[in-house]
């Protein structure tokens, strides 16, 4: 097991270096001069241009810039935003809980609905339930998040007025963040109605963000389940006279879960990408929205640092999934 762990870590290092090169090159590969772009129609004097280039560190050889940057990153210094002038890591840490809260809710929703739906579809293979479920899953998977989010807002917030349009909590509640998780903070605040408000704000974005993973998980569970259900040991279990619930719930599901867990792990990456759109639509102050805003503000250090941090998280999650997978399926370790 230890050797397996070590091998996994060893792969991470070149991957991280690769990602850092991509994140670093991003701003430099953009066509045109990033400094000139900052001033737009206004003509910038050459002195001013030189001054800003120096500020951004763009006046030095690229290789030196890169190693400087990498040196900073290793020691936890991701640089500062050229716009707000605050350290990138601080901003990231302040906004990250919002994204985690949303993603967790979404993944829980996706798992709680996706797995049972996939199992039932597999058992009732070919039935109307199965066909319509897989049809819906396909639609859900292909739905552009932006459009889907707006559609839900118009229906549930606009026409039915069941949920608030956007944000994390009603503006009437005002308390300092403790954990950064609004559901917990609203309980801690002790303000009446705060928790319900946070919950109702979380509903629509969670559904939107959960849609694609839910579809994928349901489809994956169904096919894994179908495969397992045709195995000899399932037939044996049935022949032994075990209740259908035990056969499916205990014997089959457990084995079918192996590929599903990998899928769930992979969905975390998909989710961070989805969060960028979902957070923008729902004005959810997380890292996805932060990245989008930074692109619009041409805040290159933030885009660079944010990309790297997000990539690091996805890598970390994948590592955990790999380890988990190794635990469930001993054959993988070798």
């Amino acid at each position: 097991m230890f050797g397996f762990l070590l091998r996994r870590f060893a792969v991470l290092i070149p991957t991280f270096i690769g990602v850092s090169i991509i994140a670093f090159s991003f701003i430099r590969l953009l066509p045109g001069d990033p400094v000139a772009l900052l001033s737009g129609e206004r003509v910038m004097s050459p002195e001013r241009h030189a001054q800003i280039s120096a500020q951004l560190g763009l006046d030095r050889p690229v290789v030196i810039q890169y190693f400087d940057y990498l040196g900073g990153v290793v020691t936890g210094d991701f640089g500062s935003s050229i716009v707000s002038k605050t350290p990138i890591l601080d901003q990231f840490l302040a906004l990250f809980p919002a994204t985690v809260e949303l993603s967790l809710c979404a993944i829980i929703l996706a798992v709680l609905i996706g797995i049972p739906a996939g199992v039932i579809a597999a058992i009732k293979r070919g039935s109307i339930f199965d066909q319509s479920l897989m049809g819906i899953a396909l639609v859900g998977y292909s739905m552009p998040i932006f459009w889907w989010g707006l559609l839900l807002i118009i229906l549930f917030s606009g026409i039915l007025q069941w949920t608030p349009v956007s944000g994390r909590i009603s503006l009437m509640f005002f308390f300092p963040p403790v954990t950064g998780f609004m559901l917990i903070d609203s309980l801690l605040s002790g303000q009446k109605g705060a928790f319900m408000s946070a919950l109702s704000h979380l509903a629509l974005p969670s559904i939107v963000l959960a849609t694609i993973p839910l579809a994928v998980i349901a489809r994956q569970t169904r096919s894994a389940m179908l495969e397992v259900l045709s195995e000899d040991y399932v037939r044996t279990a049935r022949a032994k006279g075990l209740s259908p619930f035990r056969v499916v719930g205990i014997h089959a599901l457990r084995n079918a879960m192996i590929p599903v867990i990998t899928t769930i792990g992979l969905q975390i990456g998909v989710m961070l990408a989805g969060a960028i759109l979902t957070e923008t639509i729902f004005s959810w102050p997380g890292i996805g929205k932060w990245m989008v805003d930074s692109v619009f503000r041409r805040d290159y250090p933030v885009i660079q640092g944010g990309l790297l941090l997000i990539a690091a998280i996805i890598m970390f999650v994948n590592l955990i999934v790999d380890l988990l997978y190794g635990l469930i399926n001993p054959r993988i370790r070798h």
Partner: protein
Amino acid sequence: MKHKLVLAAALLSATFFASAASAKTFVYCSEGSPEGFDPGMYTAGTTFDASAHPIYSRLMEFKPGTTEAEAGLAESYEVNEDGTVYTFKLRPGVKFHTTEFFTPSRELNADDVVFSLERQINAEHPWNQYVAGTSWEYAAGMGFPELIKSIEKVDDMTVKITLNRPEAPFLANLAMPFASIVSKEYADKLEAEGKKEQLNQMPVGTGPFSFVGYQQDAVIRYKKNADYWGGAPKIDDLVFAITTDAAVRYQKLKAGECHLMPFPNAADVEAMRSDESLTILEQEGLNVAYLAYNTTQAPFDKVEVRKALNKAINKRAIVDAVFQGMATPAKNPIPPTMWSYNDAVEEDEYDLEAAKKMLQDAGVENLSMKIWAMPVSRPYMLNARRAAEIIQDDFAKIGVDVEIVSYEWAEYLDRSKAKDRDGAVMLGWTGDNGDPDNFLDTLLGCNAVGGNNRAQWCNEEFNELVTKAKTISDQDERAKLYEQAQVVFKREAPWATIDHSLSIVPMRKEVTGFVQSPLGDFTFENVDIAE
């Protein structure tokens, strides 16, 4: 789940209306997060709306709804004979905000003014680089470091600013957000505590609202400043709910989650107009889009040729196709909301036959030219290629062959400056200080040839008028010169002016007292919510 949501919604609306009745809270669905709260460091309107306008005041202020500067924190001012020495008498009894993090011990005085401006132009000032990487973008952009010779405190309530040369737009510049007056006492306190950067995060000013708190990318909260020198605001609390997506802002406005929003989607405007719970305001923005000929190259060095081409441009068609009506055709280089706008100037009406004849009379045949179209969408021109195609189509009808060219944006800006540029370039401008000088001299003056003056047009008569207008401090006299300059401009036609885009502001019916600013600012000191 459904029941819970309904319950939550009910609870929410109950709390919303309950507190709305006791304390008036005005919610503005703003379009983005502020970059910081010290306006001098920034250039974005979004930042100014969240910092300079609610929190601070300036020596001069723009009269609501106009681009005219009037005395603000300065009770009165005097300008010497040659226009180089400005003496400001400060308004007595102006209080800085008392907040949870700062209690002022004194009222506004000359120290605050000197401190606020000096730090922006003097690189040696201890507060010039109080946050690493600070650049005083606007002060530099308006030429303050070269323009201002000295800023002196004459006595506690008098400040004298000496310029290196006469510059009439200087008063308007002082009304701009970057020239906001911060508290020196607060800055001193922060310096003593070693927390200088807080000046940009927890601001203290003399404006209509005091700062309560900011949750990054989510909410900014302000409280009414009951001691505001311009009269206490009518609302108690001001909240900015940061909502970056325009369609979502609209839904929030409809649902009553906010009272007013900026920048709607063009596609939504019609539905907004038919919504009985909303009022829609509209006004020309402080901008212009233009097509600048290279007036140094044949045959575009001939006025008749430029005039003929101008008559072949269907501005109405461009405005309809590109803006879906959210713009007006432009006849002058400055927008109609700006003082000195000359409405008497006659437009070169769209007339292909006349244009064709004018070209023939000028002896131009088989003309082929390039038109540069920006690769990006700008507020004054959403789709340059589409506009260029419409022009191309019309020019073909008068026998002029057009090739549309484009470059990557930074490249485009740079190459279009070249004096020997081949072709007419499409570009535009969004004004800074509402002063005509900021359009007419900045974009068309002889000094700007090879830079902002993309027409490479140096006309003695025009240049004399706009240069002279800089040295006069009387606004009426200046207006006369600018009106004349617009006549010369139209006669000489260095550009085809294309459009001024409209700024559209949807708000709830119950909102009163909101005045649309031609400068594009969103200010709420006079708003109220009708019961």
